[in-house]
C-alpha cells in the first residue's frame, strides 16, 4: 500500500467519524491554536511598534540627567546596593564621597555641551528640543483674539517633529545661541492674525508673556504648515483653538528670567542612522561622562531601540509561557490520539489478520497506523493553525487600535499591522507530525505484532 493510499484511507476514516475524530484532535487543536494566537499577536505588536518607532523616532537617543542613585537604579548597578557585606562595604563607603549631592540648575544640559559634541563628532548628532513652555493671546487687526502655544525649540527639534515649512526658515542654531527673538508661526496663525494677502515674513509681532501686561517682540522668520497631526504630537491633543508657534528654547529661558543657558534635564538627540547604533551610543556616553566628571549627576542614554528591546523581552517571555502551556495541551492531545489508535487497532484486529494473511509484512501494518496517527495530528494541527490565525487577527483588529491609543496617543500615522509568525506555523506543523509519530508508535507496534491466526478468529 503506497503512502498516498494510506493517507487517503486515514482521511476517509477521519471523515467517516467526524465527532470521534474531532474529540481526538481537540487537545492538539487547542494547543496549537494557542501558540499561533499568541505568536501572531506578539509578532503584530512587534511589527507595529517597530514601524512606528521608525516613523516617529527610530534614530533618536534620549538623554536623562540623573542623580547617582537614580542612575544606578536605571543602570541596574550594584554599587548603590545597601545590602553589602559588612566590613567591605564600610571601607568602600569611607573612601567614596557620600552620594548625597543632588543636581542643581548649574548641572543641567547646556547648548555649549552640544556645540562641543558637534565639534567632536561633526554631523553625527543633532539636538532636538521642542517643548511647550507656555501659551498666550494676541489681538489681531480686527481686535479678535488669536491664541498661541509657545514651543521652545531648536532646529533639531523642529526637524524631528517633521515640521513642514511653507516659507522662510526654521529656528536656527544661531537664533538659539544669540537668544534671538525669532519666531516661526503657522499658516493658521497668519490667516487669523494678519489681513489677507500679507506676507508675514519679516513682520514683527508683540506677544504678551505674562498676565501683567509685559510683552515681548518677535520677528517672524518662517511660516509652517499647520496640521492636526503636528499639533497632536506636539501638544498631545488636537482641537485646540490655539496654534503652536516656535521660538528658540534659550530665548524663552531668557524671557522668563532663567539666567542659565541650560536646556533642562532631559533632551532628545537625533543621531545619523547610517552610523552604527552601538558606536554612536558609546561615543555619546563617553562624551557626557567626560562632561559630567566635574559636574554632579550622570547621564543616562535611552533610545527607542532599547525600549523596543524591552518590549521584545516581555513579549518573548509571554510567548514562551503560553507555548509551555500549549506544549502540555499537545501532550494531552497526543495521549488522546494514542488512546483512540489503540481502540482502532482493537476494532480492526480481524482486518489486520486478513491483511497479514494476504502477505502484508509487519512493517507495512505498523506504517499504516503511524500514518493514521500522523494524519489525525496533522489535520488537528492545521485546524489549530487556522483557528490561531483567525483568533490573532480578531484580537488584533479589536485590540490593536486600543494599544495604539495607549502607546502612541492615538496617532493617526500608525496602523496596527497584523502579521502571523510563519516560523511558529512551521514549527507547529512539524510538532504535530512529531506528536503523531511518537504517540502513534505504540499502538502501531501492537498492531504489527498481532498474530494473524488469532486475529482472524477475533470477533
Amino acid at each position, binding site marked *: 500500500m503506497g503512502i498516498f493510499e494510506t493517507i487517503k484511507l486515514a482521511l476517509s476514516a477521519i471523515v467517516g467519524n467526524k465527532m470521534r475524530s474531532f474529540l481526538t484532535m481537540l487537545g492538539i487543536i487547542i494547543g496549537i491554536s494557542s501558540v499561533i494566537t499568541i505568536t501572531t499577536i506578539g509578532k503584530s505588536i512587534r511589527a507595529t511598534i517597530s514601524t512606528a518607532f521608525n516613523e516617529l523616532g527610530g534614530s533618536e537617543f534620549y538623554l536623562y540627567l540623573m542623580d547617582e542613585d537614580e542612575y544606578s537604579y536605571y543602570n541596574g548597578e550594584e554599587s548603590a546596593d545597601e545590602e553589602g557585606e559588612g566590613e567591605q562595604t564600610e571601607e568602600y563607603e569611607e573612601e567614596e564621597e557620600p552620594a548625597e549631592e543632588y543636581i542643581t540648575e548649574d548641572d543641567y544640559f547646556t547648548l555649549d555641551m552640544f556645540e562641543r559634541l558637534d565639534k567632536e563628532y561633526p554631523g553625527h548628532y543633532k539636538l532636538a528640543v521642542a517643548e511647550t513652555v507656555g501659551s498666550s493671546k494676541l489681538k489681531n487687526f480686527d481686535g479678535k483674539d488669536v491664541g498661541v502655544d509657545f514651543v521652545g525649540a531648536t532646529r533639531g527639534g523642529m526637524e524631528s517633529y517633521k515640521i513642514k515649512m511653507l516659507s522662510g526658515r526654521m529656528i536656527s542654531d544661531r537664533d538659539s545661541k544669540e537668544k534671538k527673538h525669532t519666531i516661526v508661526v503657522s499658516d493658521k496663525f497668519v490667516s487669523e492674525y494678519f489681513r489677507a494677502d500679507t506676507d508675514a515674513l519679516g513682520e514683527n509681532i508683540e506677544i504678551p508673556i505674562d498676565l501683567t501686561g509685559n510683552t515681548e517682540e518677535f520677528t517672524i522668520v518662517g511660516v509652517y504648515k499647520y496640521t492636526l497631526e503636528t499639533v497632536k504630537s506636539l501638544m498631545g491633543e488636537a482641537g485646540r483653538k490655539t496654534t503652536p508657534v516656535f521660538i528658540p528654547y534659550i530665548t524663552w529661558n531668557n524671557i522668563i528670567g532663567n539666567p542659565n543657558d541650560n536646556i533642562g534635564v532631559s533632551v532628545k538627540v537625533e543621531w545619523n542612522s547610517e552610523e552604527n547604533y552601538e558606536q554612536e551610543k558609546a561615543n555619546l556616553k563617553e562624551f557626557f561622562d567626560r562632561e559630567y566628571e566635574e559636574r554632579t549627576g550622570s547621564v543616562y542614554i535611552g533610545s527607542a531601540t532599547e525600549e523596543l528591546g524591552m518590549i521584545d523581552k516581555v513579549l518573548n517571555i509571554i510567548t514562551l509561557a503560553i507555548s509551555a502551556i500549549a506544549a502540555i495541551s499537545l501532550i494531552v492531545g497526543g495521549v488522546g490520539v494514542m488512546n483512540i489508535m489503540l481502540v482502532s487497532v482493537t476494532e480492526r484486529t480481524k482486518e489486520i489478520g486478513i*491483511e497479514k494473511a*494476504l502477505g*502484508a509484512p509487519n512493517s507495512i501494518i505498523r506504517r499504516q497506523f503511524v500514518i493514521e496517527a500522523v494524519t489525525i495530528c496533522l489535520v488537528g494541527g492545521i485546524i489549530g493553525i487556522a483557528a490561531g490565525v483567525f483568533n490573532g487577527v480578531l484580537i488584533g483588529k479589536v485590540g490593536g487600535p486600543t494599544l495604539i491609543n495607549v502607546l502612541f496617543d492615538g496617532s493617526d500615522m500608525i496602523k496596527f499591522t497584523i502579521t502571523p509568525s510563519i516560523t511558529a506555523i512551521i514549527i507547529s506543523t512539524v510538532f504535530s507530525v512529531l506528536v503523531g509519530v511518537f504517540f502513534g508508535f505504540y499502538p502501531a507496534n501492537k498492531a504489527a505484532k498481532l498474530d494473524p491466526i488469532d486475529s482472524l478468529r477475533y470477533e
Partner: protein
Amino acid sequence: MNNIIKKFYIGKPNELQILNGISLDVSKGEFVSIVGQSGSGKSTLMNIIGALDRPTEGEYIFDGADISKFSDVELSHVRNKKIGFVFQNFHLISRVNAFKNVEMPMMYAHLKPKERQNRVNELLDLVEMSERKNHKPNELSGGQKQRVAIARALANDPEIILADEPTGALDTKTGRLVMDLFHKLHKEQGKTIVLITHSPELAYETDRIITISDGNIVNEEVKNGNI
C-alpha cells in the same frame, strides 16, 4: 516444471501437541482435500500449509525452499506471492469495495497501478463479479463475497490455493456454484487447490482425499477418474 510441495511436521508451537508428525506432499496441479472433524487438527495443519504458522519440528519444503525456518517477513512474502487463501467466513475488508479487496494483495506485491487494474478486472471477470466491483462487502450476498474472495486469492497467481471450508457459510445452491468454480480453476487453469473440509461429500469431489484425526493422518485415498 515440477513443483512438489513436501511437508513433514511434528507437533505445533502450542502447549498442546495438536499434530503428531504429519507427512504429506502435494504436487502441482493437484486438487487435494483434507478431511477431518472438529478438533482433528486440520485447521492447525492448514495454518502451517498456509505459512501462517511454523511447525515446532520438521520441514516444510515449498516451491523448492524450506520455509519452516523463514522469518516473519519472508513468510509474509510467501503468503503474498505464492499462497491464496479462501476462508469460510470470506474475510473481506468491509471498509473497501470488491475491486479494492481483490487489488490488495497486488499492492503488497508492488504491482503498478495499471497492472493492478487490468489484472483485477480480469479476475473479476473470471469469477463473474465484474458488475459488482464497486460494491462493498456488506452489499454482496454470501456467494458473491466468496467469489470475490476467490478472485482475491488468485491475485498474485499463487502456487497453491488454500480453501478452508469455503462453502461452510453458504447455502447448498451457492455452495455448488463455488465448488464448480474451483473445479473450473483446477481443470481449465491447472491451479493447485487444497480444500479443507469436514464434509466427506465435498472431499469426494477432489482427486485425492487425506483424512486426518487426532493429529494424525489416518487415511489417504486417490480417486480414479474425474468428475
